């Protein structure tokens, strides 16, 4: 267009041009204006204002990052802008509940915030710069913050072994194992054990059809005085969940299971002269109860006790609770079982005791006559003999209901992956979850809890049975499930995974036979493998004197004043006790304890009397340890320590207890070497008059 014609542009066009220019500029301005008023800018100004009120404001402002602050760790795939608002996150001076959020410092944890980022543990959207987008779920941002209550799940993403700092996670993992979740589900890093629930191949020999019927209807048999099922505690929950069977299904399943009956391998015969001898005496059952208590069956098995209207289970939860066992089992089966549990259930944890026929007869009669409940099978309809059609149908149900996932019946292979894979449940986004009709917030935590507490609320046709967890257990299980985020997406994460390590302690030879027969590792631990019910025996050979050990094995005494659990009396023969002592003294040694380097004869009476002064006056050891009948309840009784412990062990222990038994609560002190010698000299003089075991009466309080 020639220049002289420019003025000829119609006015209308010019106006349109002018207006569109203004609109264009205004639209362009939206973004910078929004940016200027962005939420994080308010926090930026707010932090500067807040910092000026603090005593160390100069230092706070020196550490201050203006603008969008970002933690960028390419190896971990971390790009977190959380510190844009959470400015004080690594300021130790701001670690105080009076500091307003979002400026408060992070609590002291073993990991440095700036070296790990935030989203690695807390989840949420690290790239977002708006409060809602960073913390919550929106359409585009799908990974909300993990509630702090379940934050231990994030520790479990990398740490596969159990840390002392994460009790809730550890408990959750234990519960996943205890309730056999891996029977039906694939659970992260857990190989499916060969057997989870009891082998049912010969269940018809153990229990009646009526009992199976009752058990399938409602496995929780302990009720309080008002008839309510007691489910308030961890121990009162049988591992068997409640299935939703129809009446006919229970009938058919009970028919099938009770038809699985073959002769018992181990004899159930008791010498007739034993029974005959008891016939003339009336105290058979009370003798049976006494022996039941003396054998410390309650270390592993619980009994329901009602006190002041409150029913609670007293005893361990290694084995099943036995309150109503007399109404459950077949008398012949019980005798055969007590003689040799592994003959019936090869994977049983119960030791094979050396019973005399007298004890066996009395204890089994006590259990069959006293541990009963006449009402137990009261609501079971008359079932009659099983018909072939019922058995046939029951066999089908056994597979289709998932029973085979936990229970083995010879000839019925267990089903693999019966339930959904849970190994990456904790990493799922909300859009991957199906909530069905569940009236719960659409979050991963609510989904997990709805599925676990009431599977039907999410999916009315779910096959999953009903478990009964209290809220603490539910939180623990949720934490453990949230920690299972599947295979790490980034190579950096895979490198961080700390595997669970628990090398199996499986000794060979003669000791190995006894170890497997008496199931030592159910209660004792050896180099980190085994149970926690009883002392760690990793270095028992360095600790105890051999004659004491043999006497203890023959007749175990409790070493702690207030302990109600005690090692059962296994009735070892002399040869067995010596085999065990040989192995313990040879193998279970700590290199810090040099038995040959300490001669007990070097400890003189003057040293012992000085040691006594130190023990009672300077260090007040009696606050925690008992000698005779006086002293404290915290440590073991030292009444017989002169016979019990080796001098070299005592010296090494006084130098540094944690070096011998990591995690022991005995504090490490600053004893001088002469003090250690004097205390050892005194402790070695503490000897019970009668050798351990022979004088004391067996039995304990309950």
């Amino acid at each position: 267009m020639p220049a002289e014609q420019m003025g000829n542009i119609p006015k209308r066009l010019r106006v349109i041009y002018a207006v569109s220019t203004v609109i264009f500029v205004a639209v362009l301005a939206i973004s910078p204006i929004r940016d200027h008023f962005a939420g994080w800018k308010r926090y930026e100004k707010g932090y500067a204002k807040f910092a000026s009120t603090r005593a160390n404001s100069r230092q706070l402002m020196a550490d201050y990052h203006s603008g969008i602050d970002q933690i960028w760790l390419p190896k971990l795939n971390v790009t977190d802008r959380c510190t844009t608002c959470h400015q004080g996150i690594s300021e130790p001076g701001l670690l105080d509940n009076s500091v307003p959020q979002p400026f408060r410092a992070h609590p002291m944890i073993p990991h440095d915030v700036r070296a790990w980022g935030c989203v690695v543990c807390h989840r949420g959207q690290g790239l977002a710069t708006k409060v809602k987008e960073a913390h919550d779920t929106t359409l585009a941002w799908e990974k909300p913050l993990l509630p702090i209550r379940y934050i231990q799940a994030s520790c479990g993403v990398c740490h596969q072994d159990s840390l002392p700092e994460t009790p809730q996670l550890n408990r959750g993992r234990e519960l996943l194992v205890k309730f056999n979740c891996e029977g039906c589900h694939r659970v992260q890093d857990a190989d499916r054990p060969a057997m989870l629930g009891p082998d049912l191949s010969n269940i018809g020999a153990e229990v009646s059809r009526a009992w199976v019927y009752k058990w399938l209807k409602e496995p929780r048999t302990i009720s309080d005085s008002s008839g309510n099922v007691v489910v308030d505690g961890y121990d009162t929950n049988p591992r068997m969940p409640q299935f939703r069977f129809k009446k006919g299904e229970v009938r058919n399943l009970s028919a099938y299971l009770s038809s699985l009956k073959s002769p018992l391998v181990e004899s159930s015969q008791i010498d007739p002269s034993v029974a005959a001898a008891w016939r003339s005496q009336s105290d058979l059952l009370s003798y049976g109860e006494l022996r039941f208590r003396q054998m410390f069956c309650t270390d592993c098995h619980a009994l329901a006790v009602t006190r002041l209207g409150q029913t609670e289970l007293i005893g361990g939860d290694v084995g099943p609770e036995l309150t109503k066992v007399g109404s459950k089992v077949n008398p012949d089966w019980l005798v055969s079982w007590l003689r040799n549990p592994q003959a019936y259930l090869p994977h049983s944890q119960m030791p094979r005791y050396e019973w005399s026929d007298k004890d066996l007869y009395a204890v089994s009669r006590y259990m069959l006559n006293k541990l009963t409940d006449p009402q137990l099978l009261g609501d079971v309809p008359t079932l009659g003999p099983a018909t072939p059609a019922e058995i046939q149908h029951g066999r089908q149900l056994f597979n289709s209901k998932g029973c085979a996932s936990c229970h083995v019946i010879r000839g019925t292979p267990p089903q693999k992956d019966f339930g959904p894979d849970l190994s990456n449940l904790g990493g799922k986004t909300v859009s991957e979850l199906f909530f069905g009709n569940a009236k719960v917030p659409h979050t991963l935590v609510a989904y997990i809890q709805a599925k676990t507490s009431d599977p039907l609320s999410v999916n009315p046709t779910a096959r999953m049975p009903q478990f009964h967890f209290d809220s603490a257990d539910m939180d623990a299980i949720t934490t453990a499930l949230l920690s299972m985020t599947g295979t790490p997406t980034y190579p950096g994460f895979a490198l961080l995974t700390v595997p669970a390590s628990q090398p199996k302690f499986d000794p060979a030879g003669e000791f190995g036979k006894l170890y497997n027969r008496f199931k030592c590792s159910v209660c004792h631990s050896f180099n980190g493998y085994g149970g926690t019910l009883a002392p760690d025996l990793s270095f028992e050979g360095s600790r105890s004197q051999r004659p004491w050990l043999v006497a203890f094995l023959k007749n175990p005494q409790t070493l702690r004043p207030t302990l109600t659990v005690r090692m059962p009396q296994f009735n070892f023969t002399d040869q067995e006790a010596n085999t065990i002592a040989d192995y313990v003294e040879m193998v279970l040694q700590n290199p810090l304890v040099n038995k040959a380097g300490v001669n007990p004869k070097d400890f003189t009476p003057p040293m012992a009397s000085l040691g006594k002064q130190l023990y009672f006056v300077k260090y007040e050891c009696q606050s925690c340890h008992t000698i005779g009948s006086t002293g404290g309840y915290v440590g073991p009784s030292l009444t017989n320590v002169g016979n019990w412990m080796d001098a070299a062990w005592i010296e090494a222990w006084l130098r540094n207890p944690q070096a011998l038994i990591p995690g022991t609560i005995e504090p490490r002190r600053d004893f001088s070497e002469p003090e250690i010698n004097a205390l050892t000299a005194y402790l070695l003089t503490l000897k019970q008059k009668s050798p351990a075991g022979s004088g004391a009466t067996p039995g304990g309080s309950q």
Partner: protein
Amino acid sequence: MRRYALLLAPLLLAALTACRAKHSARKPDPLRIAYDTEVDWNNADHLIPLDYQQSQGKRLFYVYCVWCHADSTPAGPSNRPNLNPAPHLIDDGTVLNSMSDTYLDNIITLGGSAMGKSASMPPYGKSLTQDEVRAIIAYARAVAQPPYHKPARPLPQYKAR
């Protein structure tokens, strides 16, 4: 007039979107966002929220201290009645609130006899780390009844007689 309106409309819109960012402050339930909780020993219905440090202190307390500084223990009877003078309960705010953090730290790390108190309290300075001792003190402060309030000025380390 219409022209101005056309001009102003986008500006107003932009201003409105910018101001919308003010969100309503949420008040979350302290128990739901707590790392852990502890039951008030004097009132079973009262749950005390604990933060990370306090919950680590709770864990350590139940391993090391509960045997003498509580009236019941996970393993049965307490050792407290065996001791003279009787140890203070961990939640006894009437006594502990007037002691400074430094004083409590010293009593735990150096033991009772070093601080002119009963030798029944052993020193834990070699068994517990500094962070662990601080965590136990933080736990004691959290469960104190009557509640503990941090003093504006640090308390003197020794009480004047």
